[in-house]
């Protein structure tokens, strides 16, 4: 479905990715893990062509190269993206935020309607007339995910979905992710927190300093604690 081969990417002159390899098959949930600053967000951005430029390697989605595309065209191909800082439209209401993505047209995909999204995130329905900017971080995160679902993605990229959230709220976000997985949504999630991975991931990629250094199933990951020690712990 999505594959990255030896991707090198940079912001201006500063290279942030030095060789990322990964692949996702339909229906799969993949976690990218690694300490902060190792290139997880940059990997996501190099897929949606946001702010970063891919200088080498291949980024393909359903056989089509994404390199050099305009972001909105990538999104329209079916890649949903929830950026790490959420970026809700602060002056718009919740409902208005949800109306920014284009209305459903393509009937060939699994589509989401507004009602379905509200079913998934009931609080959003309760707050639908609130201004997004004054909502809590968790609510904003829900909104940001809901908004991306309405771009009717075949694959959803979630960048650190519960960064900076209170534990209880973060748990709710994870619940939502699990629910999405149950709906059969393919996802790529960047993570720092191990316990999320256990709840929803199928496979794991470990990123360190701009390079994918390990990949395997969740079970393999937990079977190899030295990976955790080497790439994630403070040691």
């Amino acid at each position: 479905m999505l594959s990255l081969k030896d991707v090198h990417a940079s912001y201006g002159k500063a290279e942030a990715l030095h060789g990322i390899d990964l692949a996702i098959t339909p229906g799969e949930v993949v976690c990218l893990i690694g300490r902060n600053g190792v290139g997880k967000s940059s990997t996501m951005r190099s897929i949606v062509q946001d702010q970063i430029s891919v200088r080498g390697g291949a980024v393909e989605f359903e056989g089509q190269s994404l390199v050099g595309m305009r972001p909105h065209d990538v999104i329209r191909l079916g890649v949903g993206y929830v950026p790490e800082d959420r970026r809700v439209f602060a002056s718009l209401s919740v409902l208005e935020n949800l109306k920014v993505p284009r209305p459903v047209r393509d009937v060939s995909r699994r589509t989401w309607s507004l009602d379905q999204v509200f079913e998934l995130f009931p609080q959003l329905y309760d707050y639908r007339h609130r201004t997004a900017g004054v909502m809590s971080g968790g609510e904003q995160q829900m909104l940001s995910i809901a908004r991306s679902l309405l771009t009717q993605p075949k694959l959803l990229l979630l960048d650190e979905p519960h960064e900076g959230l209170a534990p209880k709220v973060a748990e709710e976000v994870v619940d939502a992710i699990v629910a999405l997985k149950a709906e059969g949504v393919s996802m790529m999630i960047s993570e720092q927190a191990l316990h999320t991975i256990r709840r929803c991931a199928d496979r794991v990629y470990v990123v360190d300093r701009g390079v994918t250094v390990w990949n395997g199933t969740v079970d393999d990951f937990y079977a190899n604690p030295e990976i955790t020690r080497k790439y994630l712990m403070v040691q």
Partner: protein
Amino acid sequence: MLFLIASGLTLIFGVSRIVNFAHGSLYMLGAFFTYALVPLIAPGTVGGFFASVLLAGLGVAAIGLIFEVIALRRVYGAPELMQLIITVALVLIIRDVVRWIWGPNSLSVPMPDAFMGALLIGDNYFPIFPFVIFGAGLAVMLVMVGVIRFTRAGILLRAGTDDRGMAALLGVNEKLIFSSVFAVGALLAGIAGGLAAPYGDVNYLLDTTVIVTAFIVVVIGGLGNLYGAFAAAMLVGITKALGILYFPRLSMVLIFLIMAAVLLARSLGRQGGPSR
């Protein structure tokens, strides 16, 4: 009236960060188009007048759109100064072409007969036409606010003002937003020019007068802030009227001083370092 012009300018700035020097020229084009259309569409009637103004506005919007696609679109990545110079070039082009077509004379657009007179309240005369302009301006503004508040186009526009990049990451074509915003800005300028045309004279130098005032309003209201523009338009209008009464020689200086003061006052609240 001032608000209509300023709102178009502020919209364009809000979304595309372009300081559009040609906005006054678009206003002027609206006035000239109206001049050309009024005799053709049911002359003298109220309906004919408004129809002419609307058509003129649409014509200006079309020209704005063409300009955006041909020229401005190519320089969105370039320094702001490039965009600015390009709009200055447009000012020169429009002014010369208008003079070419309509000549240098002051032209006069007839008012619809129904709006000619005045209301007599007690001893005071209140001319009808300014109320008509105000009413029509208000109507256009209400429609605008309606569109901006309640339609998807309006939502996209506001989303674009908030965070252009994110809108693109939700599958919205940025260029389409830019083009439509520029067209809408031009439409507003054109309608404003058309509505005001019968009240004063129409000549090819309207552009400069209008643009400076529009800048003042937009700056006082806060660049990119629609409601601010409305409040500022009122403030400037009232200041001008009062200034004429009490400090006839200083009214313009007064307005620029307000502008300077607003800018400086705002800067006090906006200090700080780099974001990271």
